[in-house]
């Protein structure tokens, strides 16, 4: 019979002796816990699409503390505002994030339009709404795929991204780009969607809805997915509110806050209500995103049914002068843009507060006490977009 391993063997790192031992820890005679260890997680990790580093202080398999460090991909985009004129800066604002690119561009345009008192044509506002919601659908499908990958469900990951590809095709056909739409400009939009293209879009959307339903049924009902998500990383309503969470993380904890309720673009004319859950765990965050997919499809249908005819852009002259705060709802949550202009063609100051930045404190609240194996799932449930955060 093989001997049991001892703490001394582990401390000394005596691998030949450890390999000769039984693997079952239940038979270990010494029951004292493993000494505290720091496990580095990231910045390169299979589950992380973007770099964030966490030092996980673990005792046995339990995480006691997580110490984050970010700053691996700071690009200095806020400083670029002094070099590029305010019209060109739309392209840079769109490139702050590779996934919620359109809504970044839209928020920037809205901010400039507010300073300069530009009345955007209603058709442009409706088109912005449609593209913004398409961007939300593709972002949530991407997240569902990454979540399936994090829980080890590779085939579900492939199916999520297969459906996402069809959404990207709609986006490419209507805007010209796949993830960098490039269709928003100050004073309106660059492209129009023709009547026959709208009909085709609605037909495609119906098929996508059916495919999405097949996938979300698995996410919400499959026992192996539920085992990894239910009761993991519970964030209470009070904690979510106090830590300043935004987006699906906040709504999954029961706070019905959605920046689309401010009524920007065409949302003031559309009928929708924020989707909330009360559990506050990883499953609730997944369920909120699944339901938001269908909500976005419904918003697109409403917007395309009501879309008015007319101009899609107005001519913009002069330079902005003033200070403004613009807020919109991105797939990951609320984004806030603060702009300061002094009447020249370059802005004086530009500041972005991205949704991931607001959700990082909640992630650090969820991690202590969880199992080491749940760390990738918990990091993913806030849908981290580190490129946005570091700008």
């Amino acid at each position, binding site marked *: 019979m093989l001997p049991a391993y001892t703490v001394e063997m582990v401390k000394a790192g005596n691998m030949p002796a450890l390999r000769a031992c039984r693997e079952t820890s239940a038979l270990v005679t010494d029951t004292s816990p493993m000494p505290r260890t720091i496990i580095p997680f990231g910045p390169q990790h299979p589950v992380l699409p973007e770099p964030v580093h966490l030092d996980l202080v673990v005792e046995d398999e339990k995480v006691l503390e997580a110490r984050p460090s970010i700053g691996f991909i700071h690009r200095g985009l806020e400083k670029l505002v002094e070099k*590029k004129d305010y019209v*060109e800066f739309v*392209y*840079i604002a769109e490139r702050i994030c590779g996934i919620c690119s359109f809504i970044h561009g839209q928020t920037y345009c809205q901010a400039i339009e507010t300073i300069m008192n530009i009345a955007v044509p209603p058709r442009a506002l409706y088109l912005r709404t449609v593209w913004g919601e398409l961007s939300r659908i593709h972002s949530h499908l991407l997240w569902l795929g990454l979540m399936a990958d994090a829980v080890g469900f590779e*085939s*579900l990951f492939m*199916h999520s991204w*297969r459906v996402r*590809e069809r959404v990207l*095709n709609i986006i*490419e*056909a*209507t*805007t*010209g*780009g796949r993830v*960098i739409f*490039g269709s928003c400009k100050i004073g309106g939009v*660059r*492209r129009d969607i023709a009547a026959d293209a709208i009909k085709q879009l609605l037909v495609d959307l119906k098929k996508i809805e059916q495919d999405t339903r*097949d*996938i979300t*049924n*698995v996410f919400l*009902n*499959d*026992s192996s997915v539920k085992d990894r998500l239910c009761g993991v990383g519970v964030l209470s309503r009070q904690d979510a509110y106090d830590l300043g969470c935004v987006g699906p993380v906040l709504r999954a904890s029961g706070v019905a806050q959605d920046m689309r309720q401010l009524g920007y673009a065409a949302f003031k004319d559309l009928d929708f209500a924020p989707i909330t859950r009360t559990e506050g765990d990883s499953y609730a965050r997944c369920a909120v995103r699944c339901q938001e997919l269908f909500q976005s499809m419904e918003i697109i249908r409403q917007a395309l049914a009501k879309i008015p005819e007319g101009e899609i852009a107005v001519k913009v002259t002069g330079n902005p002068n003033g200070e403004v705060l613009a807020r919109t709802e991105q797939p990951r949550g609320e984004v806030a843009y603060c702009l300061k202009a002094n009447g020249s063609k370059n802005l004086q100051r530009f500041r972005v507060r991205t949704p991931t930045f607001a959700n990082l404190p909640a992630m650090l609240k969820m991690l202590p006490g969880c199992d080491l194996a749940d760390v990738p799932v918990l990091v993913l449930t806030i849908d981290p977009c580190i490129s946005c955060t570091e700008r």
Partner: protein
Amino acid sequence: MAYFQMSKLALKWVLAKPATSRYPFEPRRALPGSRGTLVFSKDTCVYCTVCAKKCPTGALVVNRAHKKRTIDRLLCITCGYCVEACPKKSLSLGTPHATPAVTKDRESY
């Protein structure tokens, strides 16, 4: 019950045609309306350099003296700002995307 939902999905796709294409053996067909490469037309250009001044990345350079326009395809972000700015409409965006390149050459028109 949910177990069978995933099985149903998996079985459907075992029997269906693949959702992916066999790139690079099958070339990718660009969708109509896709922003691909910048196309130059020579006959209408007056070499006013507006496109080069507007280009956000500096990919376009216009030499009025030699009547030559050059573009670095790897710098171009196909935003279409030059197309909008061109007073003579001698620039347009084609649907095919730029081909892979191994050197940073500037194309002349």
